[in-house]
């Protein structure tokens, strides 16, 4: 009974981790570096959504505003920083992404302070399903997450630009000689990566609070999920995010609330030792 509640929280947490991990794994697979700014992009999305929500009180408008703002930020990051580092080692891009992450956090901290903000959501009566209380908000958030994921997979697997992205991820040289324009692929990649983190940020903000550090704290589980799922594997990132989210929640009666993140870390280390390519990754990508 109480375990069902934990599983339910775990799924909500897992969807947030999965969305962030999907953003990370796409960038890792296509631009070929671990984007440490993903966490702070998520925070940015949380703030953007918060202001849209207090203006409109509509979930749809909140989601769209957060997506628009964060995708723009993401595109700006690409043009201002990551495009200039194209062709340099993954280390340079990784260090730069940490720098970008700090800059985003600094701007948010200076503009809105370090206090905790909350989405002012009206409390609604929960549904009782099989003895478990399910709040309508959780259902709506889950629905938003599924719609976002469906849209992302639709873009990746059913459109031309998605095919081009996957081609670049597979073999960027081969993609270029087949006439795929890398600039367009990269711009689309960063828009998509930004949109995914935006929704994760709105969900996290609605479930908990909005503060400049919330994204940084979700970064480690998101990296863990991207590695667990297999770098470059979209379905793996989402599946691993859900598994880690549920595992973290189920572990709380055993190890306590503070060590939740340690569960993700332990899983990540175990995956790196025993199956570095993760659930769905390719073996050659990890060496």
């Amino acid at each position: 009974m109480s375990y069902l509640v934990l599983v339910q929280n775990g799924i909500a947490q897992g969807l947030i981790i999965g969305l962030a991990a999907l953003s990370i794994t796409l960038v890792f697979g296509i631009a070929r570096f671990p984007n440490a700014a993903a966490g702070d992009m998520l925070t940015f999305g949380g703030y953007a959504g918060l202001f849209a929500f207090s203006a409109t009180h509509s979930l749809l408008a909140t989601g769209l505003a957060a997506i628009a703002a964060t995708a723009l930020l993401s595109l700006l990051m690409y043009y201002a920083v990551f495009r200039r580092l194209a062709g340099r080692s993954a280390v340079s891009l990784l260090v730069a992404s940490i720098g970008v992450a700090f800059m985003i956090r600094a701007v948010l901290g200076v503009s809105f302070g370090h206090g905790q903000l909350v989405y002012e959501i009206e409390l609604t009566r929960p549904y009782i399903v099989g003895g478990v209380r399910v709040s309508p908000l959780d259902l709506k958030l889950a629905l938003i997450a599924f719609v976002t994921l469906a849209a992302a997979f639709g873009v990746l697997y059913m459109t031309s630009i998605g095919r081009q992205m996957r081609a670049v991820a597979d073999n960027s040289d081969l993609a270029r000689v087949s006439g795929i324009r890398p600039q367009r692929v990269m711009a689309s990649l960063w828009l998509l990566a930004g949109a995914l983190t935006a929704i994760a940020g709105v969900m996290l903000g609605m479930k908990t609070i909005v503060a400049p550090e919330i994204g940084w704290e979700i970064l480690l589980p998101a990296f863990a999920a991207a590695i667990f799922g297999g770098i470059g594997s979209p379905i793996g990132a989402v599946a691993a995010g859900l598994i880690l989210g549920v595992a973290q929640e189920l572990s709380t009666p055993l190890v306590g609330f503070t060590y939740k993140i340690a569960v993700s870390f332990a899983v990540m280390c175990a995956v790196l030792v025993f199956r570095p390519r993760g659930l769905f990754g390719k073996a050659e990508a990890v060496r």
Partner: protein
Amino acid sequence: MDAYLAAIVSVMLIYVLLALGLTLQYGLTGLINFGMVGFFAIGAYTSALLALHGVPVVLSVAAAAVVAGISAWPIGLASLRLRDDYFAIVTLGFAEIVRLTLTSEKWLTNGVQGLSRIPPIYEGTGTAAAFVIVAILLAVTVAAIFLIHRVAHSPFGRIIAAIRDNEEAVQAIGKDPARFKIQVLVVGSALAGIAGALYAHYVTYIVPEQFVALATFYVWMAVIMGGVGRVSGAVVGTAILMFFLEGSRFLGDFLPWISSVQMASIRIGVVGLALVLFTIYRPQGLMGDFTKR
């Protein structure tokens, strides 16, 4: 004024030790250690706890080096055989877990209240004692510089430089790069452990909040600005870092309309901006002619 100067130089020397550890790991070998502060924290708490239980400071600092070095070993085993960026993620996570543990395990670390009344490096008060402490820190730093210099110019140093520049080539001549990387990781982390121990005995009061990820990137900023892979770069970069950290504090007093919380945000932003600008425009750092990345 003398006391203030001594304080700045002391903190700077501790940062130089960290920067030297990172120079060994990243500059000379190419290891992306994003968890420097984790090993620093392990050193600080190990030495502080031992000294609080009556162990002489010299021994507790040595123990801090050993514990920090040993704690790095499994991290290396788990991740150094894979891509470089995996190691970065694992070390970043490791440092967060260390901080969580320091916060949660109250029976050992006293949680968020931290450890106080840690025995100082040198008993005594006033300016004279402050200068003795500076002299001790300076001696340790010079020893570390000598060590790194010797390592860089030894056969071992040539192999780790080769790993940094072309890992496949090192494998092709029959050496196992992972073994060398793990050794470098352990030695560099032991150095960070010593730095942490000296820090604990210098400030005599430590709490988990002092060991956030930002501290790691202060060291990265110093190394990247000074010049990657050069001992002089580590020293110059740390000097710039100290100037920036102290300067931002003075600026906070000078510009009263900026709150201290905002100043903390601005400091984070400047670190971020420095990391971005140096990576894009001057990857070799101020001192460096090091092979461009």
